[in-house]
């Protein structure tokens, strides 16, 4: 076998210039249209006969001859490699007759058969077929064996895949798990050339996947191989011509740094430094986003001497998209430094970021606040972060305020226990009070989603005195989302002060939501009903909420009726079958006489979901079902039949001596009742 072509080319082809999958082809300026006659593979001895040489014009380029050319290795590699590449690369979908290498088995040597099949499949016009073939790459590699995979398959892939991004993505993913298939860690470096090419393509998704695979493979390299093959690859990418390769390089520094020798380490740092000050914002962004990760693998001295200056530069970049990524890096860097260094080196920048003129940067600070808080420790938090947080809570952009409001609970939780209460009461709560009446509903609803959590931190008295008025105000908010967020978090308050304190205000809020004009709002409140019922108890429920639950059953939106039905099921699970029989079943069964067929169907759906005991089913439900089985409406009739079979099944079960009727033996019926959900629009037609 000749020298693995990938090495061959790596040494030759990389003048530091941009490298694309197809590079070699285009650099041949004499490349012309399909060649006829000699010069192609036609006259080479064909070892793997995939199919007989074609009679049409592309005969010289058939995959058979390509496979043969490689397999033989008899022709001098230098002379043929280019034309071979061309052939494979250019392989156009077979328009002519005879695509499949079906007749392949006939000829003796099978060893290259898989690769010939792959080549042929990759020429297919149908992307799905090409994709399928690439996904079976591991099978092909297994069939070829490790050596042939290295010497035949990988070079082929490196040279010839120009495809839809989707296919490239699949390839990049596959190669990440290929180490075993090329002969284990000793040969992992064989996988680098195709992945390197993939890491330079335009499409971000493919590039990212290639980088991910490269990171995976880097772990499998021996230290020697890492320095011999992987590090040079990173350097090549880092000095690539186009931004794609340089952005890809940013993600690879941290995986190869820890295992490199000191000299190489210095070089790696140097490369990373230059990427951080790259001319292209895309590269600076990539570098900024990996800064934290890279800092973690560096020695502490280097962090101080090199990373901090880089961080400072990125944090004052002209583009806000770069500056905001520096905030993220700040979290990791802060964890590495001592308190003094932190105060001296990082805090000035963080303070500056919290007051950046771009709201995006301030938003980022708000969004990462809990992480920052943990990273800098309690002392700095108290001195620096709390004031910054106050500013964020009254920022002029609603986006920033909302992000900060989201963090209120976490921030308070993470404060050191002693003194926590005073800090919250004196420094945070006043700002929260203002946010409750913010002009922006997103801010209010962000706050509403976390504010209940404060009650556990502040304890009963403070909650009643300070928080309760806020809760009540929010329960009356004009924006339904705010009210919903409060209601959905009732459990936190329940633990601390008991829900009774709230129930007076709660009820009007619930009723209003239940009758909201937007069905999505109604849907949302229905979903909290079982929870509320559990917390408020059966009496309160019967008294105040039951009628709401029944009203939803005749809502004019299907989704609401469906949710109401499920709600009943959950309530029955909570309150027991007896309660169901007394309070729900009569009302449900009355609906069977409703002139509106939709309401009659709701009865049926309810019967399907609610679990009842034997006598109730037998005596009350069955007659109704029989009546509905004769209904004039086809749909009602159909679902009545279905309900009858469900009931019959249940009766049979209940009839058996096994007595545990409470066990939710829902016969997989929960979902299936709604076999034919109708859209709200569909209802209208029949109703009138």
């Amino acid at each position, binding site marked *: 076998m000749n020298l693995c072509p990938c090495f061959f080319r790596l040494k030759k082809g990389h003048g530091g210039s941009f490298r694309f999958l197809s590079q070699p082809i*285009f650099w041949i300026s004499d490349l012309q249209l399909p060649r006829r006659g000699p010069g192609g593979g036609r006259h080479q001895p064909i070892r793997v006969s995939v199919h007989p040489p074609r009679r049409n014009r592309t005969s010289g380029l058939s995959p058979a001859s390509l496979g043969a050319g490689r397999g033989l290795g008899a022709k001098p590699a230098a002379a043929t490699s280019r034309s071979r590449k061309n052939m494979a690369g250019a392989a156009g979908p077979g328009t002519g007759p005879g695509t*499949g290498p079906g007749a392949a088995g006939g000829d003796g040597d099978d060893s290259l058969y898989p690769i010939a099949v792959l080549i042929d499949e990759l020429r297919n016009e149908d992307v799905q077929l090409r994709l399928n073939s690439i996904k079976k790459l591991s099978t*092909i590699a297994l069939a070829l064996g490790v050596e042939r995979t290295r010497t035949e398959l990988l070079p082929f892939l490196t040279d010839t895949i120009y495809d839809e991004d989707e296919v490239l993505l699949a390839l990049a993913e596959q190669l990440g798990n290929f180490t075993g298939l090329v002969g284990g860690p000793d040969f992992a470096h064989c996988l680098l050339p195709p992945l390197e090419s993939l890491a330079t393509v335009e499409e971000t998704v493919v590039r990212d996947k290639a980088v991910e695979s490269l990171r995976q493979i880097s772990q499998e390299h021996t230290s020697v191989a890492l320095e011999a093959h992987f590090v040079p690859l990173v350097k090549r990418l880092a000095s690539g011509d186009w931004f794609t390769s340089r952005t890809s390089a940013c993600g690879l520094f941290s995986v190869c740094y820890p295992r490199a020798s000191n000299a190489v380490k210095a070089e790696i740092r140097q490369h990373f430094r230059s990427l951080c000050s790259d001319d292209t914002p895309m590269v600076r962004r990539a570098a900024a986003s990996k800064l934290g990760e890279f800092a973690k693998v560096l020695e502490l001295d280097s962090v101080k001497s090199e990373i901090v200056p880089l961080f400072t530069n990125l944090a004052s970049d002209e583009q806000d998209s770069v500056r905001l990524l520096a905030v993220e890096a700040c979290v990791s860097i802060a964890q590495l430094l001592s308190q003094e260094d932190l105060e001296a080196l990082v805090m000035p920048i963080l303070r500056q970021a919290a007051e950046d003129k771009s709201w995006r940067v301030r938003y980022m600070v708000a969004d990462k606040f809990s992480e920052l808080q943990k990273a800098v420790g309690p002392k700095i938090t108290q001195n620096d972060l709390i004031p910054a947080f106050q500013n964020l809570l009254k920022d002029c952009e609603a986006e920033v305020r909302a992000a900060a409001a989201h963090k209120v609970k976490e921030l308070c939780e993470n404060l050191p226990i002693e003194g926590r209460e005073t800090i919250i009461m004196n420094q945070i709560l006043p700002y929260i009070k203002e946010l409750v009446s913010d002009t922006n509903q997103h801010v209010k609803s962000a706050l509403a989603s976390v504010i209940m959590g404060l009650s556990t931190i502040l304890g009963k008295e403070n909650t009643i005195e300070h928080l309760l008025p806020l809760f009540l105000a929010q329960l009356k908010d004009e924006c339904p989302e705010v009210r919903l967020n409060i209601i959905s978090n009732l459990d936190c308050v329940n633990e601390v002060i008991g829900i009774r304190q709230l129930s007076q205000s709660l009820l009007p809020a619930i009723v209003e939501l239940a009758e909201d004009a937007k069905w999505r709002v109604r849907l949302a409140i229905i979903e909290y009903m079982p929870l509320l019922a559990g917390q408020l108890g059966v009496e309160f429920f019967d008294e105040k909420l039951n009628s709401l639950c029944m009203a939803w059953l005749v809502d004019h939106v299907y989704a609401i009726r469906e949710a109401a039905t499920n709600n009943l099921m959950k309530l029955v699970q909570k309150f027991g079958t007896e309660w169901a029989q007394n309070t729900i079943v009569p009302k449900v069964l009355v609906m069977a006489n409703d002139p509106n067929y939709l309401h009659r169907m709701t009865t049926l759906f309810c019967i399907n979901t609610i679990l009842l005991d034997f006598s109730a089913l037998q005596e009350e439900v069955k007659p109704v079902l029989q009546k509905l089985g004769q209904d004039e409406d086809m749909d009602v009739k159909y679902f009545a039949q279905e309900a009858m079979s469900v009931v019959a099944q249940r009766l049979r079960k209940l009839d058996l001596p096994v007595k545990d009727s409470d066990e939710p033996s829902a016969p997989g019926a929960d979902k299936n009742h709604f076999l034919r959900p109708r859209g709200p629009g569909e209802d209208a037609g029949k109703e009138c």
Partner: protein
Amino acid sequence: MPYKLKKEKEPPKLAKGTAKPSSSGKDGGGESTEEAQPQPQPQPQPQPQPPSSNKRPSNSTPPPTQLSKIKYSGGPQIVKKERRQSSSRFNLSKNRELQKLPALKDSPTQEREELFIQKLRQCCVLFDFVSDPLSDLKFKEVKRAGLNEMVEYITHSRDVVTEAIYPEAVTMFSVNLFRTLPPSSNPTGAEFDPEEDEPTLEAAWPHLQLVYEFFLRFLESPDFQPNIAKKYIDQKFVLALLDLFDSEDPRERDFLKTILHRIYGKFLGLRAYIRRQINHIFYRFIYETEHHNGIAELLEILGSIINGFALPLKEEHKMFLIRVLLPLHKVKSLSVYHPQLAYCVVQFLEKESSLTEPVLPLLCPGSTSLAVLAILHLVGGAVIVGLLKFWPKTHSPKEVMFLNELEEILDVIEPSEFSKVMEPLFRQLAKCVSSPHFQVAERALYYWNNEYIMSLISDNAARVLPIMFPALYRNSKSHWNKTIHGLIYNALKLFMEMNQKLFDDCTQQYKAEKQKGRFRMKEREEMWQKIEELARLNPQYPMFRAPPPLPPVYSMETETPTAEDIQLLKRTVETEAVQMLKDIKKEKVLLRRKSELPQDVYTIKALEAHKRAEEFLTASQEAL
């Protein structure tokens, strides 16, 4: 040139129009074949446009970006929505009490410069328009009047732009305009729909408009000397200016466009920088955010820049075509800037239809043939290959846009280039013709009305026909839309007339293929079976659990005519081919609003009231 002729006859292009009438059927089409060789285009001279004219006189200027994306449909009456204006102001000026200064024209000439500077400084005071629109009304008026007066003054007086004015004017502009744009009021990311979402207007517009206007007059003043100004209008200034292009207010972007165009024209030293920064914006848009409000305006400027490129094209410009313009086709919101993008691409092709040196290869769709790769030396080919690479897979309206653009490109392509890309090209067209979306199929079939394209096809019939025939034949019966049947029969008829013998051969071959098809499917399965067996022999096999069986690929087509013989087909073709109306339906407006969301009258009125500084951007001649 036929292309130009056609352009002149066409009604002004709607920025949103997705369907372009196939124009070649018109009388002028006959000359297409003879005149197909694109002549070197005479450098379009910047000619003064009547400001009110709505027509594009020729394609020498880029299509202007539509100010309002949404046509006011007068739909359901308007619910006044919550604040639709916004503005991100971090610092308002502390002291906002402005003293009214004496009018410039009333003051003695020697004091005018000093007074002018004073007024400029006064206008650096910023006011609040958002949280309290009624604040400082008196002082706001002072500033407004001052700006107004200065606009007049700088437009009508000579020798007023003295050296001392430059820093003051640039500072005034920067202070007023360079700001962080407020968060988008519209949904971001995938939910953002540039056609549907109403722009948020800039609250401070009453002042900003005048600031823009003043600065534009300043740049355009005959006294303006770029050599002095370049100290102040530097890279940093340009970068800040470019950042503003993301503004949601179309009026603001319109001014920015004109201003940047002027700067590009006057400051030769900044040109490369401006182009590079625009590229960065595009890269970010394509590969990172997919969200930017000013792409159409930027492309419009680039259109005028490309127009002025010197020949032969520099490597940098060719890279720009391949690496920026073509990938821009990939983005979801293409419809917003497609007219401008298509203009840029066609400009490139008209500039120089063939290049001698190879373009660095970046485009290589999987199924291209050797021929395609070889033609990457040619711009036209590269563009077509690029379009094919980014061809939409599921987004039919976008596909129609691609078909429009492709036809424009084919109109200017040289036959030699055509012959090199035609195979992948027609394979794609075959797919379009078979598209279940009838607008896509219809648009593709309109190509058969373009006589220049037909002449290209007929010169290469032996290679095109075998590709197209199966798609046409299959769909002649099975397409659900009857209009398509007519168009297909029309296309088949044209093929038949082109080369009777070849047509017969194709029919024969199609039937033969048909029978082989199923057999081949089985072969493929056996093939993989065999590989699977080979793989099983490998001791490592259990470690790499075989991937789950892949879903079989079914072909979607249902019953297809198989029994019919050639004669029958011919007869049907003869009878069914509808004579395509020469003047195919005028520019169908395919676009409709997707929802009946109430529109904000105020926004619409504000946009209608905006007057463009200039209807068309003229070419910026590249310095040699």
